[in-house]
């Protein structure tokens, strides 16, 4: 440290990327080898990428539906940003799914030309939000679960999944923080906001069970160090939720015995059909259209 350059500590010389506003965007998969690792079942890898990709794609669409409906302009942008982050994850994961299955389907084909029974997202992602409290409660559960998952995925034996996990951790950390601060704000707010966010948590929690069900594809890939076993995430999820719920002066009602959803096997609620009807309408009406 030299006094000749008293301001040196203020600048980060190791990274020139952001020397001007709005520059320094990077390809998240730059330098990552995309070959399918030896010994990995391609169909399993494709199915797994679809699961995680569809979670992000469908959740992203639900968040986008809040644009023009959010209570404040600032929160509308926040929710839209989160939706865009997840859309970015979905694009990488669906592209990887297409590469793994080797049938030439790209991200657009997978997003726009599959029917509901071919989607592999959990039911939590497709649920519609009755109000803003439902949105933040659902986002808190989704982000807490996904952050734990991506954090472990960053150590995956598939370099592409590892890169997607590492990138996603930074994004979803913010999603969780955003949702948590709103749940706490509403829960510890007025009697009305408390009651409404408690109702939202109660409505979302029956969908939690499915998040930690380990699918046979996940079990097989986890055995090869490629995938994350969802059951292994439960303790971290419960600890985070307990902390947020306590700060929000809310209660987690004892989970009612609900049969976990089977979204991973393509069994969905009518909500997914509505989402896809909206999302796929243009692509299906104008095949090969470009805009």
């Amino acid at each position, binding site marked *: 440290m030299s006094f000749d350059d008293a*301001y040196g500590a*203020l*600048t*980060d010389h190791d*990274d*020139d*990327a*952001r*020397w*001007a*506003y*709005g*520059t*320094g*965007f990077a390809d998240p998969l730059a330098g990552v080898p995309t070959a399918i690792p030896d010994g990995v079942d391609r169909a399993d890898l494709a199915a797994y990428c679809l699961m995680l990709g569809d979670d992000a794609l469908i959740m992203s669409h639900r968040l986008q539906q809040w644009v023009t409906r959010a209570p*404040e302009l*600032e*929160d509308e*942008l*926040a929710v839209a*940003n989160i939706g865009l982050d997840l859309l970015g994850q979905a694009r990488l994961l669906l592209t990887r799914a297409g590469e793994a299955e080797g049938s030439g389907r790209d991200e657009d084909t997978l997003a726009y030309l599959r029917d509901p029974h071919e989607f592999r997202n959990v039911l939590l992602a497709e649920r519609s939000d009755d109000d803003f409290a439902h949105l933040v409660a659902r986002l808190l559960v989704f982000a807490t679960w996904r952050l734990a998952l991506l954090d472990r995925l960053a150590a995956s034996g598939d370099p592409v999944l590892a890169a997607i996990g590492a990138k996603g951790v930074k994004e979803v950390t*913010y999603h969780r*923080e*955003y949702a948590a*601060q709103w749940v706490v*704000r509403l829960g510890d707010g007025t009697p009305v906001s408390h009651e409404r966010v408690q109702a939202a948590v109660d409505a979302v929690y029956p969908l939690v069970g499915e998040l930690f069900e380990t699918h046979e594809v996940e079990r097989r890939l986890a055995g090869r160090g490629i995938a994350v076993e969802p059951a292994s995430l439960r303790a971290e999820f419960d600890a985070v939720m307990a902390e947020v719920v306590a700060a929000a002066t809310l209660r987690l009602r004892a989970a009612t015995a609900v049969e976990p959803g089977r979204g991973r096997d393509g069994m969905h609620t009518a909500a997914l059909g509505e989402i896809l009807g909206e999302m796929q309408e243009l692509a299906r009406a104008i095949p090969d259209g470009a805009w």
Partner: protein
Amino acid sequence: MSDEQIRHEWPLFEVFVRAKRGLNHVHVGSLRAADHEMALHHARDLYTRRNEGVSIWVVRSADVVSSGPEDKDAFFAPSGDKVYRHPTYYSIPDSVPHI
């Protein structure tokens, strides 16, 4: 108090962002938020979503003390004719190397 009045209770904050190699936080705009924590979140979402910055300050607009237009002459006009306050006014002798 009506809902409309409650909505407008969120105070105004001024937002300052520092780009990676900029030395200073630069004023980029303002926003409304319920408190400082929310203001930071909102500033992150409104003003750094295109990779603009690495550090954010938020300050309540009400806490900013500013000079007014009526102060302009007394504050700023007297410096207009003091050219000797600029270092370039002085010629540097050749025998002074490090300046």
